[in-house]
């Protein structure tokens, strides 16, 4: 029934009117972007400009993050997880390449 679905939607990112956030305060204090944030943002823009990954794919990747992780991760940590996931799915990067880079770094 439509009324029930409004409080708890099927897709966890679909947050309009979701009951469990209706009583949550909004932190309106300024939060400067970190270098991490800006780099992730920039990489997404470059991937978009080069036709490698669209913003729609980014969103789809974010929406696939399990609900608990979605709310635990900061905004740009969701992005880097989605970007990695999508680029792996599309074969733009391989897991072996990333693991190798992780070990080196």
């Amino acid at each position, binding site marked *: 029934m439509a009324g029930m*679905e409004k409080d708890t939607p099927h897709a966890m990112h*679909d947050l309009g009117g979701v009951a469990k956030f209706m009583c949550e305060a909004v932190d309106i204090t300024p939060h400067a972007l970190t270098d991490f944030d800006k780099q992730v943002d920039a990489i997404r823009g470059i991937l978009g400009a080069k036709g490698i990954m669209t913003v*729609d794919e980014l969103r789809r990747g974010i929406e*696939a993050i399990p609900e608990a992780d979605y709310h635990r991760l900061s905004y740009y940590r969701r992005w880097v997880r989605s970007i990695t996931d999508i680029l792996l799915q599309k074969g733009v990067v391989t897991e072996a390449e990333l693991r190798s880079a992780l070990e080196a770094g």
Partner: protein
Amino acid sequence: MFAPGTAVRVKDDWPETRGPVHIRTPHYLRGMQGTVVRHLGSFRNPEDLAFARPAPLRALYHVRFDQPSVWHEGRAGDELQVEIYEHWLEPL
């Protein structure tokens, strides 16, 4: 094409219950009645772009909803105005 002023209903469909999708029609509008404000242009369907599938152009509309009717709470006269793709709209 929906002309401005056309009464429409957002489809009461829930594709997210049937498999992995990327939907840009908010849950709270499914099955709701609204009025077309204007045609915003045509854009490639994000539902397909999200999966790197060929994405056809779809007409995008700005649609107005009576806010208290959507939530059964709120101030009379307040509204919601949301971009909805043509394939999510049915004429009344």
